[in-house]
């Protein structure tokens, strides 16, 4: 069933209040001179934006964008998904790892405000019979959009529950008709240093190699859980969440779910992936959520689920193998040593 609803139906009243209060606080902070001043230690902004102001400037806080278009989609109705407390939209859109727009969590919501996502081109190439290029409108119209409420587990041991809107990657790949040589799928984010300050400056972008690239095995890509997302919370994706189109692979750590994709290439050999290039002993190709394999610098046995409640929220929960999606995906890794293939 196709349901249409506007953003305003989706944001509860208290969330709206939250947001305005949030902005007032920041104004107050500014008036008190903590933001962007050379005070003794000024890091009173979310995260360490103004750490002693030696390194941080003052930027307006991003917001839940009321201008994003509402989408047509069939709503998620599985009992499992609906039983979970969702992360508030404001949090999911102001706490982002998108280094192209800054390494601090609040930076993408600020620095991605003017990012242009329309026009867009997403190219599907490589070992396919039918090369394709989707433009901005195709992303929203070519496939029936569905809502999927997924857990997102970051490799940094925090997690969220987010209502994505999109279409299965499998549908797109089928349309391109992979040849028998296609074994892997390689993804690439837009490279545009003029629009993406993190690509232009090492200081902002954390010195990782751009463009950001990711990859999946073909059978992982064809799994029904693997989603090409064009929206969240009933609306098109905000820029900071990877507009106009991003991958969502809910049983893997978040860095696999590459954002603002311009190229999907079917390959014969395993593609290189950004974090694996940077630190191969810390980030593997598979990056399946696995409580038994610690990251060298932190445990993965548990996670903090970000919903509401502030500092005193008791939100540390056990991490589940495959982020709780084992039933759907464990068979993909039968006989593999998941300690070695982390």
């Amino acid at each position, binding site marked *: 069933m196709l349901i249409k609803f506007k953003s305003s139906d989706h944001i509860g009243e208290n969330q709206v209040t*939250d947001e305005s*209060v*949030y902005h007032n*606080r920041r104004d107050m*902070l500014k008036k*008190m001179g*903590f933001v962007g001043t050379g*005070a*003794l*230690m*000024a*890091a*009173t*902004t*979310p*995260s*360490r934006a103004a*750490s*002693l102001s*030696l*390194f941080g400037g003052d930027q307006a806080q991003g917001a839940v964008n009321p201008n994003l278009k509402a989408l047509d989609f069939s709503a998620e109705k599985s009992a499992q998904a609906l039983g979970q407390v969702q992360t508030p939209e*404001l*949090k*999911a859109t*102001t*706490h*982002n790892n998108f*280094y192209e727009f800054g*390494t601090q*969590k*609040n930076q993408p919501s600020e620095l991605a405000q003017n990012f242009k996502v329309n026009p867009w081109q997403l190219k599907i190439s490589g070992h396919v019979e039918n090369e394709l290029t989707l433009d901005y409108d195709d992303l929203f119209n070519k496939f029936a959009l569905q809502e999927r409420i997924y857990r997102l587990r970051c490799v*940094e041991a*925090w997690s969220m529950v987010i209502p994505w809107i999109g279409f299965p990657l499998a549908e797109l790949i089928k349309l391109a008709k992979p040849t028998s040589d296609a074994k892997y799928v390689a993804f690439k984010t837009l490279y545009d240093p003029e629009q993406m300050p993190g690509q232009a400056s*090492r*200081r902002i972008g*954390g*010195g*990782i190699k751009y463009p950001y690239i990711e990859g999946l095995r073909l059978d992982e890509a064809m799994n029904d859980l693997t989603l090409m997302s064009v929206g969240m919370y009933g609306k098109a994706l905000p820029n900071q969440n990877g507009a106009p189109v991003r991958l969502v692979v809910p049983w893997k750590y978040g860095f696999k779910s590459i954002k603002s994709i311009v190229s999907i290439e079917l390959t014969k050999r395993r593609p290189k992936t950004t974090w694996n290039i*940077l*630190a191969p002993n810390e980030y593997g190709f598979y990056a399946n959520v696995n409580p038994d394999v*610690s990251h*060298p*610098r*932190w*445990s993965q*046995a*548990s996670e*903090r689920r*970000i919903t*509401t*409640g*502030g*500092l*005193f*929220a*008791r*939100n*540390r929960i056990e991490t589940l193998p495959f982020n709780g999606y084992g039933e759907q995906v464990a068979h993909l890794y039968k006989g593999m040593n998941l300690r070695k293939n982390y």
Partner: protein
Amino acid sequence: MATKTKVWLLKTVIHLAALIPLVYTYYLAIIDQLGGDPVEAILHFTGIGALNILLLSLLISPLAKRFKQAYILQTRRLVGLYAFAYALFHILSFLFFEVQFNWQLFVDEIIQRPYITVGMLAFTVLLLLAVTSVSALKRKMGKRWQQLHNWVYPAAILAAVHFYWSVKSELIEPSIYLVMVAVLLALRADKFKRWFR
């Protein structure tokens, strides 16, 4: 202005500059108005705050010498204690809000994660310095007091290394901190040379 008044004024400024951001940031975190993840924001705020204040405390005596303002030396203990206070809030926040009293996890993290082990070492030094900062103890300890308090230099190095090691890829800012520590130590080159003579 009398020296006493100047010291009093300076100390008042230090109290306000250290306490107002601390109280206000915790307040925002508690009411969930400190970004998407208040726990991470608090850890970063208190961590970087502790390091900044620690470095500031090491800047006081070079400044006093350079500008011949001996009276500012009288604020050094206070600044050092605020560095400790921020570090204390940092690790208590880690225990209360990050690992949420999962003692097993707390201990495991301290032992297994080199960057946290280093942070713990730095904290242990700061703790010893804070406890022995009481005037009566200082008199009682005599020469040993100065020896103990020279450990502030290794503590600063450890804290900067802890920062450098904690980040995933963005190394520029922690590198600048390492350089600042090096500069503060270089200002004391004469002192260190005397030790090794």
